[in-house]
């Protein structure tokens, strides 16, 4: 269940074509494409737009789905490192928001066929080392000495994504499109750059997260048992404690069926004290 955020259509287009994703009709502002359980979202340029897109998308999903979702931001970046080439791909392990000075740390958990990593600095405006006719923010070498890669969305993406999705599920990857010459990249050039790294990334994107595994107690056993006993109208505390006791037995004796009380008695139980006695006797059978 992966999702993928891009700033602009030219970045997303190769992926939309590859996945054969179709537009999702919804009342929101941002373009969402879907194929099966794969989502591609286009936010528009800038960290605020990206943050809003993440938020809007997150609100379309129940928490259970969000907790299992792989959430990536991919896109093009400018590079301040002359020895790195256009088309080089980097995973990001640190993001600095230039305006706020705040640092974010996407934690790298899984290895990749793309081994290079670096830090990313997110600016509010396009950045250039030279003054051009474009309205870029101009910096000299000294100003950029701690800067590696430059974009306009990374900090917004990570800050928003970390509010809605598990931190370990969030990754940011960037591919170099320029070296801060102060020129906009043509859409066809962007598509080409993205396409060149897409195949291995697609495989990694669609590979399930290794830590997302089914908890059979949570998904099958407990719901089935609850169906049988919910008529007892347990308090939240009693329900919680019973569930813990059931899980204890399930973990300790994984090859043994969980002992059940005489369920025929359930409809006959009327008072709170009878409910309490019934549950306590059951728990004694579980903690052996």
């Amino acid at each position, binding site marked *: 269940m992966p999702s993928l955020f891009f700033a602009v259509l030219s970045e997303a287009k190769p992926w939309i074509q590859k996945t054969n994703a179709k537009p999702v009709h919804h009342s929101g502002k941002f373009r969402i494409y879907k194929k099966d359980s794969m989502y591609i979202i286009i936010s528009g340029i800038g960290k605020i737009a990206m943050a809003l897109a993440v938020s809007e998308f997150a609100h379309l999903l129940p928490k259970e789905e969000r907790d299992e979702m792989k959430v990536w931001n991919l896109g093009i970046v400018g590079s301040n490192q002359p020895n790195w080439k256009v088309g080089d791909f980097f995973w990001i*392990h*640190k993001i600095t928001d230039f305006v706020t000075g705040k*640092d974010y*740390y996407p*934690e*790298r*958990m*899984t*290895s990749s066929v793309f081994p290079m*990593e670096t*830090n990313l600095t997110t600016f509010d405006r396009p950045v250039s080392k030279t003054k051009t006719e474009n309205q870029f923010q101009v910096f000299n070498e000294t100003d950029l000495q701690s800067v590696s890669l430059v974009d306009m969305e990374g900090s917004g993406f990570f800050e928003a994504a*970390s509010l809605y999705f*598990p*931190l*370990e599920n969030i990754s940011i990857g960037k591919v170099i499109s320029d070296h801060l010459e102060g020129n906009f990249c043509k859409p066809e050039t962007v598509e080409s750059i993205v396409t060149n790294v897409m195949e291995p990334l697609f495989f990694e994107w669609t590979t399930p997260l*290794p*830590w997302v595994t089914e*908890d059979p*107690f*949570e998904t099958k056993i407990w719901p089935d048992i609850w169906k049988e006993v919910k008529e007892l109208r347990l308090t939240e505390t009693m329900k919680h*404690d019973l569930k*813990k*006791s059931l*899980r*204890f037995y399930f*973990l*300790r004796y994984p090859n043994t069926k969980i002992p059940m009380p005489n369920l025929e008695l359930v409809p006959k139980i009327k008072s709170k004290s009878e409910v309490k006695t019934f549950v306590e006797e059951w*728990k004694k059978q579980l*903690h052996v």
Partner: protein
Amino acid sequence: MFKSFSHIYIEEAVADHFRTKEILSKFPNAIKIPIRHYKDSFNRNSQNFRIQKQSPKLVLAEKKEHFLYPGSDFSPNFSHKHFYYNTLALNCIYDCEYCYLQGMFPSANLVLFVNWEDFFTETKKFLENNGSLYLALSYDTDLLALESFFPATKNWIQFASTEPNLTLEIRTKSTNFQSIAHLTPNPNIILAWTISPQIVIDTIEHGTPSLQARIKTMQKTIEVGWKVRVCIDPVLRIPDWKFHYQSLAETLGKELNPNGITELSVGGFRMNLDFLKQITDKRKDSSILFHPFEKKDKIVSYSKEETEEILHAIVPSLEKHFDPSQINLSYP
């Protein structure tokens, strides 16, 4: 997933510290990430301790305050007046299901404080002001297990040799005694091993050395003259626990020279209630954590009856081989 310590976060203030460089030299292929303060990474909300444990990162940092903490009520003070602990490192390379660190820290990444000289200075000040100190070194970590790249145990033993009123306890599950074998035994140092039945090691103390390896290490330590404490703590009520712990007592009696044992410390599982709640919210795979513990004063533990049963089962078994005066209860 990445191997352990594939990435190292380095506080900018200690980037050029000699100990930082020494540690980094042990991980030449690690990716280095500068940070301003270790808490910027370590203290983030919503980290998943369980997943991080599969691929822990290293954090090299500077301790700026709180170089000594009063000892916990959960741990024995062995009748020392001034019982304190310090935190040279946060977290551990082992993965014991009962470990309170899972509930205490928001992250499983390993934080190493490199400015030991500041710890030494503050410890000296305490000794000057108070006359004596019983200091537990390896509280929120297992220092001996880290010795190959973070030689704190050796350095603190050397420091203690200059401070006759300082008593150190170094608690460990590690068998890395070789790292300190060249040091002269110091009567002010107590090396304390956690010892558990092999089945506990196999099923609950993930990644830790075997029982035989720990016993062998303890015996070597005793032979060369160190003070050794055996900690059968925490005792866990696993299936057939009586058999396993009584067998453990027999094994210890056969394989350890009782004359070399300073103490045998016995205690049942116990934890801060809030920590346990944190742990069970994240960790759903450990039956020992879902026991119906007794709760009192924000502490969870086995019930009085269960605790008495534990003591009645284990202490007599130990008394067959060790002098009763050597056996202490680590927690009532």
